């Protein structure tokens, strides 16, 4: 079966590897195919970035950076069976890590939630978690080194197995495991300090 061409056929479902390979090759030459890549993955990338930053404006800016970086590096991308989503998450991780490094000092003081808009607040109300609890959790996460934030986010937020996290970050499985343990310890310390 050929690849999806029209907007109505774009689905957020996982595309099978052969289709994904064809889509990538087409996206290198055809802007419309790249738009399909964008539509298929923008939600996953946005969700990952938002869970790490907790700020809508920052998320929109970083998501934009992720897809422009993907566009720039796409001609050099060689499909080797690694899902496109993982490649995009790797780019997103680099973007968020850079952002986190620049803003880490700012995040060491309690976050007052001013970056969140009304929609964020309502979502939090729906989930039954208070703004304070969420802010506390956010400050604790953002106080960690970006590499620890990344392993926690990919493993616990995105639900990726350690092997896939290792593939995205270009690390060994053992390194990811030890970073996860260390990250949890650091997060616990940050929570203790914050109370």
């Amino acid at each position: 079966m050929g690849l999806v061409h029209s907007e109505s056929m774009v689905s957020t479902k996982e595309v099978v590897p052969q289709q994904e390979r064809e889509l990538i090759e087409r996206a290198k030459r055809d802007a419309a195919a790249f738009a399909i890549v964008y539509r298929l993955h923008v939600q996953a990338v946005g969700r990952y970035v938002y869970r790490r930053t907790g700020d809508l404006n920052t998320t929109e800016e970083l998501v934009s950076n992720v897809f422009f970086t993907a566009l720039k590096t796409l001609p050099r991308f060689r499909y080797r069976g690694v899902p496109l989503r993982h490649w995009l998450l790797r780019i997103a991780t680099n973007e968020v890590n850079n952002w986190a490094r620049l803003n880490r000092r700012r995040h060491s003081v309690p976050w007052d939630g001013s970056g969140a808009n009304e929609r964020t607040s309502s979502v939090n109300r729906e989930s039954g978690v208070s703004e304070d609890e969420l802010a506390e959790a956010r400050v604790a996460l953002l106080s960690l080194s970006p590499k620890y934030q990344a392993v926690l986010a990919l493993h616990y937020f995105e639900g990726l197995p350690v092997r896939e996290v290792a593939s995205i970050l270009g690390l060994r499985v053992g390194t990811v495991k030890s970073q996860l343990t260390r990250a949890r310890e650091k997060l616990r310390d940050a929570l203790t300090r914050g109370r």
Partner: protein
Amino acid sequence: MNKEHDSVNGVLRRLRDQDWPGSSHNPELEESLMQAHERQVSRKRNKLSVITAALAVVLLGGVGFAAAGGIELVKTWFITAEVDGREVIVDSADITVEQDDETAVVTVENIELSAKPGDPPLEEGGMVTITVTNQPEED
């Protein structure tokens, strides 16, 4: 320990449960991406055209050079000649080389020589010594 374990899990769960409230699809960003894509492909195509044109110029130049006797000229760079022990200038030479694994037979069919500036002009006759060095390979 369990309490601490639970607090870490609780924090991770709280953050995980935050779904991105942003739009799933931003038409402006998509349009910008498509425009950037077209510029990128166009730049690549132009680059390829320039490289193709440059190769064509080099190829045509090479054919023209060969047709204008350039190969003969190049061959003269690899030979030196002496007339009665006096070094002279090789103006042009028709050289063929037959080569097997061990030996090379160099045949000079025609050679035009002239005296070096400041030397007396060449006279008819005399012993001509031709030395061929690092001659280009021929089929």
